């Protein structure tokens, strides 16, 4: 099959599925609505199959790392393969909703995930420090606004000057909301145009 034909099939399928879903959003036609609901279910099934592809791809990378004993990496890859095998074995024996796999998920993944998220607090401090050094006009503005908003949210702000909470609220409600709405409008228009380009097969970057 030539590259050209493969591309045309991909464009056709994208256009067909995309136009059907858009039509479903705007039109109340029972036959269409049912067909699109089925189409979306197919999408979910397809995505589940792709998880298997993803797992094979991941194993391929890590088995290669272990086989080559890549310095500073192979022991992590070994650990990953071992844990993956344990999770799969426990889920196969007790079921995905089984208490053992649930326990492992809650006590290993959720705990690690929460730890990661909490690290964000420290990163925010170091990033803020770098960002709000008054090196340029923009950075100075950022610094001033950041200080006002911090004081607005802390009880000491109102104690220093009663106008700080009102000023902070005005910054959030007026310039911030105005800029955000402009951002959202530009974004939505950009996304719609990209969608149209994708549906007509002219967003070529990701298409072979």
């Amino acid at each position, binding site marked *: 099959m030539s590259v050209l034909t493969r591309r045309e099939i991909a464009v056709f399928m994208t256009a067909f599925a995309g136009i059907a879903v858009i039509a479903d959003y705007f039109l109340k036609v029972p036959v269409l609505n049912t067909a699109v609901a089925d189409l979306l279910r197919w999408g979910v099934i397809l995505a589940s199959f*792709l998880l298997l592809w993803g797992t094979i791809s991941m194993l391929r990378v890590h088995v290669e790392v272990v086989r080559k004993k890549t310095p500073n990496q192979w022991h992590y890859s070994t650990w990953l393969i071992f844990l993956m095998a344990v999770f799969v074995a426990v889920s196969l024996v007790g079921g995905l909703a089984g208490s053992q796999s649930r326990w492992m998920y809650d006590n290993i993944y959720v705990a690690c*995930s929460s730890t990661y998220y909490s690290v964000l607090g420290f*990163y925010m401090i170091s990033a803020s420090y770098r960002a709000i050094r008054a090196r340029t006009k923009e950075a100075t503005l950022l610094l001033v606004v950041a200080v006002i908003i911090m004081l607005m949210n802390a009880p000491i702000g109102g104690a220093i000057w009663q106008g700080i909470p009102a000023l902070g609220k005005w910054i959030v409600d007026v310039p911030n909301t105005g800029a955000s709405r402009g951002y959202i409008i530009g974004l939505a228009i950009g996304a719609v*145009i990209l969608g149209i380009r*994708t549906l007509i097969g002219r967003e070529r*970057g990701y298409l072979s």
Partner: protein
Amino acid sequence: MLTAGRVASLGALVIMIIVYAWLLTRARKGKVPRIRKMAGFDAIEEAVGRATEMGKPVFFTPGVSGFDHADSPQTIAGLTVLRHLSKLTAKYKAPLIAAVSKATVLPVAEETVRQGYLEAGAPEAFKPSMIRYLSDEQFAWAGGCIGIMHREGVAANIMIGNFMGESLLLAEAGYQAGAIQVAGTANRSQIQFFVTVADYCLIGEEIFAAGAYLFQDPVQLAGLGAQDVAKWVAIGAIVGGIILKVLGMPVILDLLKM
């Protein structure tokens, strides 16, 4: 037959398609809209050059979303950048690592990179292991990306797509690894982290201009022209709506509620 409350949206979509079709016709006659310089996209080549000189990998991720969500245009924009990036890494012989967080993105990313290497005339340099699926789970994927950045000492970190709570974790990891960073997202609540930490930043809708800017394709440039026309229409509707509302004639407001 038309769903109530969505008629105005449908009208806006039809108008945008008509404007796009008109600009497309003009573009085919050679009248393409001009596009301003965007430092974020220009910096990608600089980042690849740096990685080549250092002999270290270029890291790329298209974000946390797949193709089944309202954020999928950001993933598509990210993959468009990946196509350009893979051509550059093939040209400069720099190692590339692209980490995806959704299994649905994996085959598309693989084909995108394969095609990039093919176009650069180095299909033999493409390896499927360049594209790594890490996990569908947000923080497992983020942890994997951070691990890769630190272990493999990446020289460049390019992140274009939808990023959520992990955006700062990834950007700080890139900073700690000493990588030159180009980051872009349309996620309003995360963009400030990229602006703060990344060396070059693409803000909001700028990421959707990737295809037009990087490939200078007249059809995609026409799309940017349509975006500009739509923005002027939106501004007109806002200003007109305010004036009419003040005059006691909320015509535009009623129209948008249709």
